[in-house]
């Protein structure tokens, strides 16, 4: 697997080759304001990436997610989701602390201890269901934002979904700082790491079947809707304005940041 940074660099080079969006007419202040508001100077490149993603999604991601839902019963899927979420807690904890949120850090630590033991290795969310300590998501992209790092130009990356340089860096940091990335070596570890990554993608896509179907079916321009929804939702997450829980598997970038990007999840 190429490192995310090298991946990002390659993408940026591609973007430069593909050219930038037409600048708005500088004499039209409304057009200029909208151009800034959209924050998408690489729009033609991003739209190309989006159509590549839609192709992959139609042929691979969505069918796999639908099959997963059909074949695996709901309690098992919930268990998988919980295990993936529990495996992410070290990264969430680190970011709670880096953002100076001791209460949320305490929640995360408590959840990890309870769910790893009473929850049988994270299969059951005992902390949430019986102790009322609900999970939340944090990632390095959010921490960078809290520290004042700007998001940079909007990016759409096939399979990962909507992002930007800040959240993409956060995604890389999340992998690099994950203790499990550095535990052991050998074929077994590689296989387990691969299984975890694959399950994260399937679990995320499964949770997004309805919202993404709705966007693709009802929207006049799914690309623009996802861009707007991602950036708004991301801002709400950064300020911790949403006290409802992000899904256990929420990642630093892409669709994984949450279920329900549209009002009917």
């Amino acid at each position, binding site marked *: 697997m190429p490192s995310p940074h090298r991946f990002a660099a390659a993408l940026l080079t591609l973007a430069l080759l593909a050219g930038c969006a037409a600048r708005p007419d500088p004499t039209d202040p*409304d057009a200029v304001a909208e151009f800034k508001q959209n924050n998408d100077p690489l729009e033609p490149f991003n739209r190309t990436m989006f159509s590549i993603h839609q192709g992959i999604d139609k042929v691979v991601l969505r069918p796999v997610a639908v099959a997963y839902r059909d074949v695996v019963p709901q309690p098992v899927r919930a268990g998988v989701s919980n295990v993936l979420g529990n495996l992410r807690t070290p990264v969430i904890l680190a970011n709670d602390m880096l953002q100076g949120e001791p209460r949320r850090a305490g929640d995360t630590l408590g959840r990890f201890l309870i769910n790893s033991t009473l929850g049988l290795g994270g299969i059951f969310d005992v902390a949430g269901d019986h102790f009322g300590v609900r999970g939340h998501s944090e990632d390095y992209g959010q921490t960078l934002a809290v520290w004042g790092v700007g998001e940079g130009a909007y990016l759409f990356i096939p399979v990962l979904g909507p992002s930007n340089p800040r959240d993409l860096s956060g995604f890389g940091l999340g992998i690099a700082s994950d203790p499990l990335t550095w535990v052991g070596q050998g074929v077994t570890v590689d296989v387990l790491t691969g299984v975890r990554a694959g399950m994260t993608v399937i679990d995320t896509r499964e949770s997004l079947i309805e919202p993404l179907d709705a966007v693709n079916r009802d929207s006049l*321009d799914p690309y623009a809707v996802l*861009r707007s929804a991602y950036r*708004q*939702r991301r801002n709400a997450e950064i300020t911790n304005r949403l006290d409802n829980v992000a899904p256990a598997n929420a990642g630093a970038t892409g669709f994984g940041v949450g279920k329900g990007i549209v009002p009917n999840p």
Partner: protein
Amino acid sequence: MTSSFHRRLLLGTGLGLAAAGRASAQQDIGRAASFIQATGQDLVAAINDTRADLPTRRQRVASVLRKAVDIEGVGRFILGRWWRQATPQEQQDYLKLFEETLIRNLSARFGEYQGVRFSLGRSQQRTEDDVLVNTIIERPNSAPFALDWRVGDINGQPKVVDVIAEGTSLRLTQRSEYSAVIQQNNGSIAALLTAMRRQIQQLSAREQGGR
């Protein structure tokens, strides 16, 4: 209520003005919340009334929305900078199509929303000019979710001006969507109107199939 009133008295004259300001804001919040409560109950009743036939239910939903939503204001907000570039005829057509889209979007989901329940959430807050009313939407077999209604004061009447789900404002998202359609068609507002007409046809087809 009484105890907080006493506490306010004890705070002394210095804070008297602030308390008065807060009192009038609170009244506003109360009015907005009961307005949303009533509107929500009306909508839920219309959606869940399975005895009525489809056109009747759609009619009822349409009349609730026309009464409760600032359709012209929201429509103009969403068309944004393109409003002034549209001809008067285009503006008129757009507003009609926008209203139709709003109604059909809900009526096409009647099947999906069967058995929906609606209740006021815990936090109601004031923003610059509007009140955000928090509600919880529950449907059978799916997790409840929070929906915030932005209520503005339009000519002295409370009206819905936006709906916010999980930090995502519907009017901002839709503005982005419509503007993208116009831009992708070299600034043609007629292209957006055509796309909206097609969308309404699709929605009404689904309405027939989805009940």
